C-alpha cells in the first residue's frame, strides 16, 4: 500500500471540491429561470420577448414584506458572431433596472422601472411576478449589422445584492436563497 506523505494536500483538494460542489448545488436552487426567449428583427429593430419563471425565496419574500426593496438589473446584449464566437461584436445593448417593493399603507406591491416615471401597483405578489415574468424589449441594431449571418442574444437578469441593506449583503453573497438572478443565450436564428 502506498502511503501519501502529503495527505493534507489531498484533504485540501477534497475540501475545495466539496466547496465547489456546494456552490453548484446552490446554483441549482435558482429562484429565477428563463422559460422562453424569442425574438424577431424587423426594420433593424430587434424585438425580444421573454418568459421567466419568477419567484422569490422565503428569505427574499420576508425581506420584501419587511419593507426592503429588491432590485434587478436587466440587460440584453446582441452580438454578431464572428470567427467561431471568438471575436464577437456587440451590435445592440439595452439595460433596465427594476425594483419591487411592498407598501404597507396600501398593502400593495409596486414595480418600478427606472427608465419610466411612476410605478405599477399590484394588489398581489403573483400579479407583480406575472408582470416581471413577461418582459419585452426593442433594440435598434447598428446599421452595419443588418447583414449579419449569425447573431447571439444574451439576456441577463441580475439581482443587485449591493442594493440590499448592509447587514444583509454578506448573507446574500453566501446564501442560495438570494440567488435571484438568471440568464439565457440564444444564438443564430
Amino acid at each position: 500500500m502506498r502511503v501519501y506523505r502529503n495527505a493534507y494536500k489531498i484533504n485540501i483538494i477534497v475540501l475545495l471540491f466539496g466547496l465547489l460542489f456546494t456552490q453548484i448545488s446552490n446554483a441549482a436552487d435558482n429562484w429565477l429561470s428563463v422559460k422562453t426567449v424569442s425574438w424577431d428583427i424587423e426594420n433593424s429593430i430587434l424585438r425580444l420577448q421573454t418568459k421567466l419563471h419568477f419567484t422569490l425565496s422565503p428569505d427574499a419574500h420576508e425581506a420584501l414584506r419587511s419593507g426592503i426593496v429588491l432590485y434587478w438589473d436587466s440587460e440584453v446584449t446582441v452580438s454578431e458572431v464572428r470567427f467561431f464566437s471568438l471575436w464577437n461584436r456587440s451590435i445592440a445593448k439595452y439595460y433596465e433596472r427594476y425594483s419591487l417593493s411592498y407598501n404597507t399603507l396600501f398593502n400593495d406591491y409596486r414595480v418600478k422601472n427606472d427608465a419610466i416615471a411612476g410605478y405599477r401597483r399590484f394588489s398581489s405578489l403573483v400579479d407583480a411576478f406575472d408582470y416581471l415574468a413577461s418582459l419585452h424589449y426593442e433594440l435598434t441594431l447598428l446599421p452595419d449589422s443588418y447583414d449579419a449571418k449569425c447573431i447571439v442574444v444574451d439576456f441577463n437578469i441580475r439581482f443587485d445584492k449591493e442594493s440590499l441593506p448592509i447587514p444583509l449583503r454578506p448573507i446574500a453573497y453566501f446564501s442560495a436563497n438570494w440567488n435571484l438572478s438568471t440568464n439565457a443565450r440564444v444564438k443564430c436564428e
Partner: protein
Amino acid sequence: MRIRIPFGISALLLLGFIFLSLQLMSTALQEASPLSGMYSWLLLSNSIATIILLLLVGINAFSLIRRLKNKEAGSRLSTRIVLLFIVLSMVPAGVVFYYSLQFLNQSIDGWFNVEIDAAMDDALELSHASLDQRIRWNLKQSQQIAERFNGQTLAEASLGLDRVREIADASEITLLSRKGDIVAFSGLIASDILPSLPVTPLFLQILQGKDHVALESINDVLVVQSLVTIKIDGGYYLQIIYPIPERINDLTDSVEFAYVRFQEMTYLRHSLKVSFSLVLSLVLLVSLLASISIAFISVREIIAPIRELVRGTQAVAAGFYEELLPVKRQDDLGFLVESFNEMVQQISRARDESRLSALEIEQQRAYLEALLSSLTSGVLSFDANLNIHKANHGANIILHVQVMRYFGRGLNDLAQGRSDLQHLVDILQPLLEKSDEIWQRNIMLDTPDGRKELLCQGSPLFSTEGGYIGAVVVLDDITDLIQAQKNAAWAEVARRLAHEIKNPLTPIQLTAERLQHKLKDKLQEEDAQLLIRSIRTIVQQVEALKFMVDDFSVYAQSGRDKVGRVDLQSLVHEVASLYDADPKINVLIQEESNIPTVSADLVAIRQVLHNLFKNAGEAMDGGGQITVKVQSILLAKVRYVRLAIYDTGCGVDIARAKEIFEPYVSHKTKGTGLGLAIAKKIIEEHGGTIRLDSSYKEGAGFIVLLPAVVHLG
C-alpha cells in the same frame, strides 16, 4: 539584494493598516455613509488581508517549527516569546471580543422588544383607523352630494359641480356617464381639465351598484377617491376626490416610514448580529494576526543578538576565537555582546598563553624524555598508588624487561615470572611504601648477563602544594664501576708487587747461587747436598715468584699500544696448534667462513687465547677435547666476533662461578689465579666481554665477544 524593512516601520505599517481597516469597516457599516456601497469590497479586502496575515503567520510558524526541529540557536526562546505574545494578546482580546459580542447581541435585541413592536403595530393601526374614518366620512359626504343631484337634469348637475366641490372641500369632482366618459369636471386647479385618477378599474364595482371609496396617492400625496351613483336620467356617476389634510398626511407618512423601518430592522436583526459579529471577528482576527506577526518580527529582532551569541559560543566551542560579534545595539543585549567579545578575547589570550606553556612543557618533557633515554641509569617513576608511571630505556636494559608494559601496575607485577627480579622488588617495595626521604641501597641482581650490582636511589615526589604524588627510583648498574675499582686496586697491587718483590728476587737468586758456588766445595758432602737442595729450592721459589710477578705485571699493564687488525680465525688456529700437539688433548675448531677481523693488540689477544687454552688443558688433567667455535653475530645492531671455548674437564662449580674472573681466584692447585682475570681485563680493554657459559654442563665453557671491524661500503 534583500531589502530589510526596519522593525518600527513594519510595525507602524501593520498597525496603520489595521486602524484604517477598522475605521473603514465601521464607517461603511453606517447606512448613510458614502462607503456603504463599498462595504462588500471592504469586507473582501479585509478578508484577503486576513488571509495574507494568516499566511504570514503560518509561514513564520512553519519556519519556527522547522528551526525548532533543527534545534537552531534561539528557536526555543523564540517559540516561548511568540507563545507568550499570543497568549498575552489573545486572552484580553478574547475577553473583550466575548463581552463585545454579548453587549452587541443584547443591544440589538434591546432595540426590538414586544412593547415597541406592539406600539408600532398600534401606531399603524391608529393611522389606518384614522384614514378609514376619514374615508367613510368622505363616502358618506359623497353619497349626500349624490342625493342632492338626484332629480336634477344633466345640465343642472354639470353646472352645479363647482359649487358642490367648494362646499364639500373636495379637490376634484367628475361627472361620468355609464360608459365612463367624462361629462363634466371641476378641479381645484382651474387649468386641470381631466381627473387625476383613472376610474376604469373601478367601473366594474360601480356597475354592480356598489359605491366605491379608497385611499389613493397622487404624486405621493394621499387623497380619498370616492365613486357614487347619481340618479339622473340614464344614470350617471360622480367621482369626488378629497384631499387628506397635510398634517394627517405627514403623520401617516411618518408612522408608515417608522413602521416600515422597524419592520426592516426587525427583519435585519439576525443579519445585523451576524454582520456585526463578522466584522468584530474580522477585526479581532486581524488584530490578533497582526499582533502575532509583530510578535514574530519583534522576536526576530530580540533573538538576533542572542542567536549571534549562540553562534559565537559555538564558534568558541569549536576553537575559533578570532571573529568578534558585531555590537549593533546599545541595550542590555548589546552590553551582553560586548561582554562576550571581551570574554572571548580573554579566553583567546589565555589559550595562546596556555598553548605556549603547553609547548614549553612539551619541549621540556621531550627534553627530559630524551635525557632520560640517553641515561644509562634506569629511572622508574611511580604514582601515588606506587604503580609504575614512567620508565626510561636504561631501566629496560638494566632490568632486562620492557617496563612500559607494566605502566599502571605495581612493582610486584614486574617480578612475576622473573625470579631474578624478585629480590630487587622485595627490597624496593618496602622502601617505596615506607620511606618519605631520599634513600640509597646497593642491590645485587642476577641477570642473564651475569650478576650485576645496582646502586638504587629513591626519592618520594611531592606536588607544589606538598601532597604526595609518587616516587622515583634511579637504578645505576655499578658492576663495571666496582669491577674497574677492583681492577685498579689489583693493578696497583700488581704494580707494587712487581716493583717491590721482583727487584730483590734477582739479588736473592744470585746470592743463593753464589753461596752454593762458594760453599759447595767447602762443606761436607752431606751438608753440601743440603745446601744444594736448599739453594735449588730458593732458586725455584724465586723463579716461581718471578713468574707470579710477571703475571701481576701483565695484569697491571694498562692500555694496549699496538692495536691493529687481528684475524681471530688465524690466531685461534695458531694457538690451537700448540695445544693440539699434546697427544692427550684434541682440539676441534668449528668456524664460519668470512669471519670479520677485530681491532686488537695481537699479543694481548694471543695471551687471552693462551690463558683460555691453558686453563682448559689444566682443567682436563687426564686429557680431553677442546672445542673452539668462531662465529660472526649481530647484537643490538653491532657486529661481534664470538669465540667460544669448551673443554671436557672438571667444569666450574656453579656456586663459585661468579668469582672465577676475580684475580687470585683459582680452583687449581697450581697457577697464580690470574689467568682468567687477565683474560677478562684484556677483553674488556678491547671493548668486549667474556663470560662463563653456564648452559654448558660437560666441562667449562667461556664465551668471548669482540667488536668486529666493519668494512664500510
